[in-house]
């Protein structure tokens, strides 16, 4: 009988093999722990390949210094590899303390990790397109649901005005209206100034400076003012609504309200949307004034148009319906922003990621829908001659 010795690795953790015909004795030495798991894995896989022909394998743990789950699992992996190659494998001389762990890992990972091949990528792409389309549909349905629920609550509140939560409404009005005043007036002031500056710069070669006032007025009062305000409100307050309602949903606060017999639409949604519907027209008005002020200032300082000429021209350019168009649109857009924000908030599920994703889509969708609604209003006002 001929015996040969093979040493697989020289390190603090090692596996020494002694071959005796078809019998192999492997001795594990050193520390078999997480820190060495990477090299141990190579040692173990190499050993399984090297002693392919073995019919009987003894894995001797007598010289093992330390063992943790990582090492125990690798020994078990070795054991299973030899068993799969048809060798009769035994783990011998394990210490009292290690035996429990070795017996424990013997039981795990038995179920074949049946990782079915991922589905066809084309099918996956089609699947995700289909899901997005279906989601657009279902989110419109949810929007309609919430609008219906809100209408019911509003009608109920008209019959019993005491049901409106005044404190809550005022609180939200302060947050979405009063506290938004500085940033919204600043932005619209700048927008008005920029439009006026560009107008003066482009119109001057034609000697048409004076019509800058008409352009600024019509643009700001009809379209840009309300759009800028709505975009800012969607980013500022719509996102806050979604995040608040979403985290309340995650912590089961909404379920708690429901079990106490309260309607979440009445308690949470109505005050928020009422606040928004009141705040946005006021902000739109303030924004329009700030934009006109900015335009006037630029016309005076940059265009050399004195304030009395600007005001005189303004009086001719503004026609009441121009102003009314902007103001009429504002509450509808506010309603839309509020509805989208609340629907998205109620759609949050358990994970932190979904809260972030819903908040993003609340802002993106409400801005998109505000622009679409603005388009419909443009068609409508043109049709009735305003």
């Amino acid at each position, binding site marked *: 009988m001929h015996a040969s010795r093979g040493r697989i690795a020289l390190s603090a953790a090692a596996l020494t093999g002694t071959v005796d015909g078809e019998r192999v004795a492997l001795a594990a030495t050193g520390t078999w722990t997480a820190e060495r*798991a*990477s090299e141990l894995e190579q040692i173990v896989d190499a050993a399984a390949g090297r002693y392919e022909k073995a019919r009987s394998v003894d894995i001797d743990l007598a010289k093992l210094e330390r063992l943790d*789950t*990582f090492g125990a699992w690798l020994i078990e992996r070795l054991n299973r590899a030899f068993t799969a190659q048809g060798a009769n494998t035994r783990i011998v001389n394990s210490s009292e303390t290690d035996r*429990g*762990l070795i017996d*424990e890992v013997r039981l795990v990972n038995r179920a074949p*990790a049946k990782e079915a091949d991922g589905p066809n990528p084309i099918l996956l792409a089609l699947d995700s397109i289909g899901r997005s389309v279906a989601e657009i549909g279902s989110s419109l349905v949810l929007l309609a649901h919430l609008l219906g629920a809100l209408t019911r609550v509003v009608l109920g509140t008209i019959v019993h005005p005491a049901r409106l939560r005044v404190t809550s409404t005022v609180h939200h009005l302060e947050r979405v209206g009063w506290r938004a005043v500085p940033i919204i007036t600043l932005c619209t002031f700048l927008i008005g100034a920029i439009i006026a500056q560009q107008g003066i710069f482009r119109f001057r070669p034609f000697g048409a400076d004076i019509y800058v006032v008409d352009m600024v007025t019509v643009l700001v009062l009809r379209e840009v003012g309300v759009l800028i305000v709505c975009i800012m409100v969607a980013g500022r307050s719509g996102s806050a609504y979604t995040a608040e309602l979403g985290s309340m949903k995650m912590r089961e606060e909404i379920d708690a309200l429901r079990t106490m017999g309260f309607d979440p639409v009445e308690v949470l949604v109505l005050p928020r949307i009422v606040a928004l519907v009141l705040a946005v027209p006021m902000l739109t008005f303030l924004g329009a004034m700030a934009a006109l002020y900015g335009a006037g200032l630029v016309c005076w300082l940059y265009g050399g148009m004195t304030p009395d000429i600007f005001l005189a021209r303004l009086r001719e350019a503004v026609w009441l319906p121009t102003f009314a168009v902007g103001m009429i649109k504002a509450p509808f857009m506010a309603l839309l922003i509020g509805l989208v924000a609340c629907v998205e908030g109620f759609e949050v599920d*358990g*994970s932190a990621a979904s809260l972030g994703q819903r908040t993003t889509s609340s802002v993106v969708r409400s801005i998109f829908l505000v622009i679409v609604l603005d388009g419909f209003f443009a068609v409508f006002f043109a049709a009735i001659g305003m």
Partner: protein
Amino acid sequence: MTTNEPVISVRDLVVGFGPANVLDHITLDVLRGEILGFVGGSGAGKSVLMRTIVGLLPMRHGRIEVFGSDLAALNDRERRSIERRWGVLFQQGALFSSLNVQQNIEFPIRENLKKLSPRLIEEIALAKLEMVGLQPDVRKKYPSELSGGMIKRAALARALALDPDIVFLDEPTSGLDPIGAAEFDELIRTLQRTLGLSVFMVTHDLDSLHAICSRIAVLSEGRIIATGSIETMLASEHPWLRSYFHGKRARPALH
């Protein structure tokens, strides 16, 4: 195999918020291989001690030694290597909600042992999953799809991912039904034996104290008023201990 060598030793620790001291000159040892049950009234500061030891809260005075080294004196690298040797099970599990169960367990392994092959990481994660008594098919589930008991088990698997020497358990059986709680106690004891863990367990559960704790420390009014075995606690004449261990709710558990 409890030895008298402490793995954690807390000396003269003071922790407070604002003007009040929640922990007032506390001294406590956790010995290698023991399960230390830490009890006290709600708001007594049990979790505060645990959070101070693992470094989530600052201390005002005192000294905490883990594996013989003073935590305050360690540099970042030394501290990380100590942190790798403990695992924490938070009261609500604190699983990462955007990762599934398998990814949650793999996370500490992947981040700390960067050289490991993906195959080995996955096998170890699944081994841990089964060791805490979860079925392999929950590995693809997200925390929001799990029951309370499954969350605790998955969180325990994550706490054990790196084969720590110490595990901190913050009310491990709270929110579990009595059967689930008993199973969880049994699981902790089995794992403690097979993995040779030292366990620091904050608990209110008298059954756990009785069934698995080798030693109990009692915190009241910011001080440790007693340490010892369950028998010592039962025999104590201290009024708080009497009402805790002999109150109405205690009887079915201990008698």
